[in-house]
């Protein structure tokens, strides 16, 4: 929580000056956004090495791959709620008061977790089979933070470019958690994308949840 507090406040200050925007508005925006970003990025990055790291379990006990994926998501979700405390205090001290729409962050977190679950399940299997994808994933995530409105606000983009944002899952999931908490409005297209990305993908990943992925034990 302390490391996250230091990171979000320094980055928040510097970027609010860079964008020449009021600190009171930019600082909580970046602080909450970064914490959500960290949740997603941490789960996805750790999932790439998850199965070899837990090989002991798979060799000695008959269990589905999803067990360790759930454990991974659970651990990072707990950290996320801890990390969220400081940005919320920060927002409150800068005069932001929660509105009734803040409750929309709850379905926001749920959809985000569902997306993280199936994506990390697939990534963990894929990265176990093809070890060079591990680097690809960490590169993609490094690049993704630049094309995702975390350190900048979507309003600075031209309207035409803003229309593309719902295609970026990172932008969608960061927004549906962060924006309700800060009283910012979430466009309906974001919710649509979030439902498609999370529930659609979840259904597609169902074959990997159970016994379908049993042979993976021979790869680790």
């Amino acid at each position, binding site marked *: 929580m302390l490391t996250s507090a230091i990171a979000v406040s320094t980055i928040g200050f510097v970027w609010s000056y860079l964008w020449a925007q009021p600190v009171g508005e930019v600082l909580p925006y970046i602080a909450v956004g970064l914490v959500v970003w960290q949740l997603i990025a941490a789960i996805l990055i750790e999932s790439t090495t998850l199965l070899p790291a837990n090989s*002991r*379990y*798979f*060799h*000695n*006990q*008959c*269990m589905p791959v999803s067990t360790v994926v759930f454990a991974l998501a659970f651990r990072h979700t707990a950290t996320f709620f801890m990390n969220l405390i400081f940005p919320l205090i920060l927002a409150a001290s800068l005069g932001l008061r929660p509105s009734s729409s803040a409750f929309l962050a709850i379905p926001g977190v749920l959809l985000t977790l569902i997306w993280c679950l199936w994506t990390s399940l697939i990534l963990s299997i894929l990265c176990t*089979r*093809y*070890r*060079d*994808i591990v680097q690809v994933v960490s590169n993609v995530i490094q690049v993704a933070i630049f094309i995702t409105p975390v350190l900048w606000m979507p309003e600075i983009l031209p309207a035409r470019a803003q229309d593309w944002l719902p295609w970026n899952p990172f932008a969608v999931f960061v927004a549906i958690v962060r924006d309700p908490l800060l009283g910012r409005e979430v466009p309906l297209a974001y919710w649509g994308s979030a439902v498609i990305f999370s529930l659609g993908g979840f259904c597609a990943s169902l074959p990997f949840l159970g016994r379908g992925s*049993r*042979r993976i*034990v*021979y*790869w680790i």
Partner: protein
Amino acid sequence: MPSISLQDVSVEFPVRTPDAHSLQLRLWSAIGGRLATQAKGVSVRALSKINLTLSGGDRIGLVGNNGAGKTTLLRVLAGSYPPTSGTVRRVGRIVALTDISLGMDPEATGLENIVFRLVFLGHTFAEARKLSPEIEEFSELGEYLRMPVHTYSSGMYLRLAFSISTAVNSEILVMDEMISAGDAHFIAKAQLRLTELLKRVSIIVLATHDAAVMKGFCNRLVWLDRGEIRGIGGFDEIYPSYIAAG
């Protein structure tokens, strides 16, 4: 009635070279690049056409040299390895004690670990909490149970793992060597507890190199050699030829 039957079970491990682990190279070869000439992956046949039927009362000793496939066979029986070909039919609750500290977390306290480990052995959280006091008492770890497990000596850690694992309730048990733990005083207690556990269980499969265990405990020996069964029978029948074969 618990039983396991293996029919023509084979297990092949793909041996993946770094090349085989690369998606990039895979794509290159798919579009006919120059790298397409790389060799196909090798695989190790760990078990080959195993036929084995186990039923109630069986005390099976798996014997064989290192690399004969004993551990692989144990894992196939326990269900963690799906056979590459052939079928496994399993009736009854099975527990593998091939790693008796599986599911324990060094950061958690002894008490928490008792629950974690029991859940890993297939109990619900409610059952685990009910079984817990007996294990606490048997382990004789007293106040240490309230401390994180990483503060334990390795002997104490093993003693806790042993105490929990022997509280398991299953119909079929799979073990890699007889489990044991503790100092001179504890080991006698441990032996007694293990004997009680082994009496409760209907089928036991044990990989062992200990002739005394084979003779005293097992009622049937299965001799594995390079992934194949060389012989099944009593101690007097199998052991001499196993030793003679070297």
